[in-house]
């Protein structure tokens, strides 16, 4: 039978408990205030962009773009990448770097202030991001529509629509 060595275990336990026993302010939970939300939103945009780029790469690698349906989905992914760039730029200019400020003068007018006209105009144009994400969804719809039509043609006993 092996002899139990209790002393070394006890010493190790005391050493581990020492920092806990000292009195100091509680630091266990990190705060998430300030600009952190903007960063995570920007990272989410980059992640979305990356996933769409990977999708395009795989579609082309597998030669699926030869089919009309997948080709439209490829266009949708490309427009989503553009949309993400657009949104990323807008958030960068106003929320993250605070270079550009937007204020509503009245119901019909907006005031945009910034270091130069180019950035101001770019910001204003970028605010129209639906011009990119709506066509992206439209191409996705077209892609799915063609995939469905192809699948119906291929399925035995199905009438093509």
């Amino acid at each position, binding site marked *: 039978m092996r002899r139990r060595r209790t002393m070394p275990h006890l010493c190790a336990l005391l050493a581990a408990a020492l920092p806990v026993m000292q009195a100091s302010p509680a630091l266990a939970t990190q705060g998430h205030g300030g600009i952190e939300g903007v960063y995570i939103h920007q990272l989410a945009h980059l992640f979305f962009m990356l*996933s769409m780029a990977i999708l395009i790469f795989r579609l082309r690698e597998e030669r699926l773009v030869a089919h009309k349906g997948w080709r439209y989905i490829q266009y949708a992914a490309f427009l989503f990448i553009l949309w993400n760039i657009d949104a990323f730029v807008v958030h960068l200019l106003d929320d993250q770097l605070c270079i550009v400020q937007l204020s509503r003068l009245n119901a019909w007018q907006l005031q945009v202030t910034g270091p130069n006209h180019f950035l101001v105009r770019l910001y204003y144009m970028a605010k129209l991001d*639906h011009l990119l994400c709506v066509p992206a969804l439209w191409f*996705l*719809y077209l892609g799915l529509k063609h995939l469905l039509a192809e699948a119906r043609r291929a399925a035995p006993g199905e009438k093509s629509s």
Partner: protein
Amino acid sequence: MIFSSLPVWYVDMIGSVIMIVLSLLCLGKVRGLKKLDEDNIIWTYLQWVCYALAVFAISRSAGHLLKQLLLFSGHRLAWSRIQPFSGAVNTFMFMAVASVTIFFERIWKVYQQILADKQALQQAHAELLYLNQNLEKLVSERTEALAFSEHKYRRIFEVSKDMILVTEADGRIAEINPVGYEMLGYNGGKSPVGRLLQEHFADPRDWQRIRSMLSREGFCASVEVEIRRRDDTRFKTLFSGSLDHDPAQHQEIMHFLVKDIDQRKSMEQQMAQADKLASIGQLAAGIAHEINNPLGIILGYTQLLLRGEQAGQERYNDLKTIEKHVRSCKLIVEDLLNFARSSETKKEAISVNQALDDVLSFIQHHSDLGRIEVIRDYAEDIPAVLLDEKKIKQVLINLIMNARDAVGREGTITLATYYDPATRRVLIRVADDGYGIEKKNLSRIFDPFFTTKPTGEATGLGLSVSYAIVKNQGGDISVQSKPGKGTVFTVSLPAKRGDALK
């Protein structure tokens, strides 16, 4: 800079509504795909992408619509409270869309694997279905093909003119074709199956030789072997064989193909004999021609001297002795010339049966046959032969006298004739049950001056001359003999062409 808020407002409001509509339409299409094939993993993947996009689009668009409405209606404070929540949901949803989308590669590989497995399964299923539906027909076809193949090879085995046999590793005969039965001398229900093949080898060393070749190389080709029949007669063969394994019992077996070359060997010997006799004939003709003239002169002068002497006187008797021996020498020389050259023949259609009767009658008058029984076994209705009658009778006299000498005081001589329509030849057989001819002498009996009789009793030219006459007449002469059992001479002569059977 101041801008009109209308473009932004319109694009935001209308775009948000369109996004909701389009995301819902996408969901409708992807549901259609799922309906078509519930188990298609790609459709499931697209469904998850569309669900995530729809939630993203609705949450984002709802947030934008609410923002515009609240700001337009002057409730900025309310929007500032809702904004963080709306933004967080928006962030979370497009992260969800990205997370689902990024798995496309893995999903596509799984889909390809499923497709390949499905195709293999469908193919296997189709094959099984086909086999199941056509099993009876396929079995029937295969059985028929097998039976045909078996029949084909069985026929080769059965009708082969060479012996084909299969033996076990120790040489025990397992299978043998009908020709093999005949070649080994198994008739009347007797079978060689189960007997050792090496028992039929005249020389046991031949079997050892073949066995070692098979062990070393796996086959043996055209090995000359003398085979012994059941009745102890022997014949030459060519042995070819190979080593094999019995597929059922995994034992070593041997296949053999045995070709009887005895006839070929015999023919080769005959050709060699004919060459030898032709050479001897040329030599003898030269010598005989040179001796014949001096002998004629000696005989002439002896007869001239005899005229001047009185009979009974010593000198007369001496001259008579000279005359007698000179005549004997001339006879030998004439025989030699007969053997060596084809003198002019007077061919006429004769009946061999009649010729035999004439010869027999002649011998019975001039020689004592004593207690020798002569059996006449003549075939009737045999065609005439076109021959020089004198010469053929000389051949018959030689053969019958030889038979009489072989039989001795008591025995049987059989004279037989028959006709072979296949070769259109008339055959004369002179058989005796005398002491026979030893094997070593068989190849020499047609040689000039060869005789086993004591010196002075025979010249050794009888069979040589007979051989030459028969050959000159377009015929053939052969001999079979067994010491102690007798001898058979067979003369084969061409039948007269166009002659009806008489």
